């Protein structure tokens, strides 16, 4: 994923530039005057032009046009220059109206006859200004909303581009993953087929040689022969275990609700051959229903339970307890506890490694793949597996799994 980071940065930068450019374009569109000198100047000039026009009309005997002309001046000022200049325009045009158009003319006093006319003008100016101001405010907020939407739209477009690119990257990586999976599969296939054949020949011809020449060989040579055979068999087992382990990683998981209690009883019953003649006190508690691949989970249980059986070989009675620990909300935690050989917690992290063993093979047989397989299965289910133990005091293995959605509160007994 590191590869995609510079791309994201680049996209982010181009998004910012695009948005800034858009905002600049809209600022030019609003046509507002920014400098205060110009704003107040606009006010004075527009009132002066209004008065000039009104006087010109009056000179040519057009009467009573001064009110709309001055109102227009006020409206324009409000619109382009804002509230302060608008107030100035009202004051100036009122003064101009009073001086040029209200009796007595060319004086700032108003006769009682023209007073209503003057007041009407003043009110008219105020109304026009306030309407303009309100309209301006509404337009402003509309424009702001539009700007906001445009910016958001542009950002979304960029984000969509980014998502599309990431998606393409993901598709590419999925294809790569599939290719490497295929490669792994063909690798496992050739291991399965090609590695086993020569091994079979080693075993076969050693057997034939033993049969043919056994009477001619001394004890030492016979022991060598025996060692060749045993080692070949061991190698066969290791190859099989490794293949099984790799198959677990490649196989698709078919998840359903799995009744763990039923499954554990089945596993214990199937281990009958290993447990016959042994004194084992089984204690199987109520286990919940979980969500997972039944055959894979069976492999986990077989590994854990047969380990418990194996490592309690020297105990009479051996005690093996399987139960449910308090898991987290959506998880079930199952434990398998024994009173067997146990292990040193110092090496706990080695327990789950492939072909890692904590006991010598003369003490306890096995290749060391069981717990690695169990861990891989549990991890593929999104769970965790861990172990606790002490030398000669037994071991406890815990694993967690997601609860079955429809059986979260049921115990195994309820749905049997």
């Amino acid at each position, binding site marked *: 994923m590191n590869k995609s980071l510079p791309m994201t940065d680049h996209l982010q930068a181009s998004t910012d530039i695009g948005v800034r450019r858009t905002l600049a374009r809209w600022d030019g569109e609003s046509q507002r005057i920014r400098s205060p000198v110009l704003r107040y100047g606009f006010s004075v000039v527009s009132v002066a032009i209004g008065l000039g026009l009104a006087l010109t009309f009056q000179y040519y005997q057009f009467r009573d046009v001064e009110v709309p002309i001055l109102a227009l001046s006020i409206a324009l000022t409000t619109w382009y220059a804002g509230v302060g200049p608008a107030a100035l325009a009202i004051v100036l045009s009122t003064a101009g109206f009073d001086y040029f158009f209200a009796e007595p003319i060319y004086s700032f006093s108003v006769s009682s006859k023209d007073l209503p006319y003057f007041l009407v003008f003043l009110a008219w100016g105020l109304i026009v200004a306030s309407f303009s101001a309100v309209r301006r405010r509404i337009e402003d907020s509309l424009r702001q909303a539009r700007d906001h939407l445009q910016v958001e739209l542009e950002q979304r477009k960029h984000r969509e581009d980014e998502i599309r690119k990431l998606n393409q990257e993901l598709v590419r990586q999925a294809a790569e993953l599939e290719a490497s999976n295929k490669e792994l599969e063909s690798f496992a296939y050739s291991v399965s*087929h090609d590695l086993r054949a020569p091994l079979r020949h080693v*075993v076969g011809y050693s057997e034939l040689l033993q049969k043919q020449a056994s009477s001619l060989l001394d004890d030492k040579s016979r022991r060598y022969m025996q060692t060749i055979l045993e080692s*070949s068999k061991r190698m066969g087992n290791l190859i099989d275990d490794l293949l099984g382990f790799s198959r677990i990683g490649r196989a698709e998981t078919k998840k359903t609700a799995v009744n763990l209690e039923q499954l554990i009883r089945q596993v214990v019953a199937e281990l009958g051959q290993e447990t016959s003649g042994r004194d084992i006190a089984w204690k199987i508690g109520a286990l919940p229903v979980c969500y997972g691949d039944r055959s894979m989970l069976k492999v986990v249980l077989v590994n854990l339970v047969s380990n418990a059986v194996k490592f309690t070989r020297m105990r009479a009675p051996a005690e093996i307890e399987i139960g449910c620990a308090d898991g987290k909300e959506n998880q079930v935690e199952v434990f398998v506890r024994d009173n067997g050989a146990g292990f040193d917690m110092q090496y706990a992290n080695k327990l789950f490694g492939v072909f890692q063993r904590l006991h010598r093979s003369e003490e306890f047989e096995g290749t060391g793949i069981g717990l690695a397989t169990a861990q891989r299965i549990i991890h593929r289910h999104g769970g965790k597996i861990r172990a606790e133990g002490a030398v000669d005091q037994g071991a406890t293995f815990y694993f967690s799994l997601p609860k079955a959605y429809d059986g979260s509160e049921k115990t195994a007994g309820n749905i049997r």
Partner: protein
Amino acid sequence: MNTLGRILMVEDDPRDVELTMTALEEYNLANEVVVTRDGKEALDYLYCRGEFTSRSNDNPAVMLLDLKLPKIDGLEVLQQIRSDDRLKMIPVVVLTSSHEEKDMIRSYQLGVNAYVVKPVDFHEFVNAVKELGVFWAVINQPPPGSIKKVP
């Protein structure tokens, strides 16, 4: 002793041939074994062509087929046999090193009669070959048109 059917073995590895023959000899089943060393040779035998032009025109009682073969592999041979009316009744036993699920599924889909993974342990191997030989060449009644002679 019952009559003995002819076994057609398709196996490219001479060591496997020798080990299998040893196992069959141990139980006097090796007299009627024809060994072909790849898929093409096996088909030549079945169709009586190439070096087998002069053989009598009848089918083996059983075919022991390895999967990984030079030129034409075992699954292709099996497919060819099952799609030909003259050959499709021949009992075919896959005898292979592979216990990949993929191979088993494909073999059974193509109509194999048995699928046997060669055991690594020699005693088990001898046992498996013996049982196969006894069952298919002696006990089983092959389809009409197969070679079968009184030993």
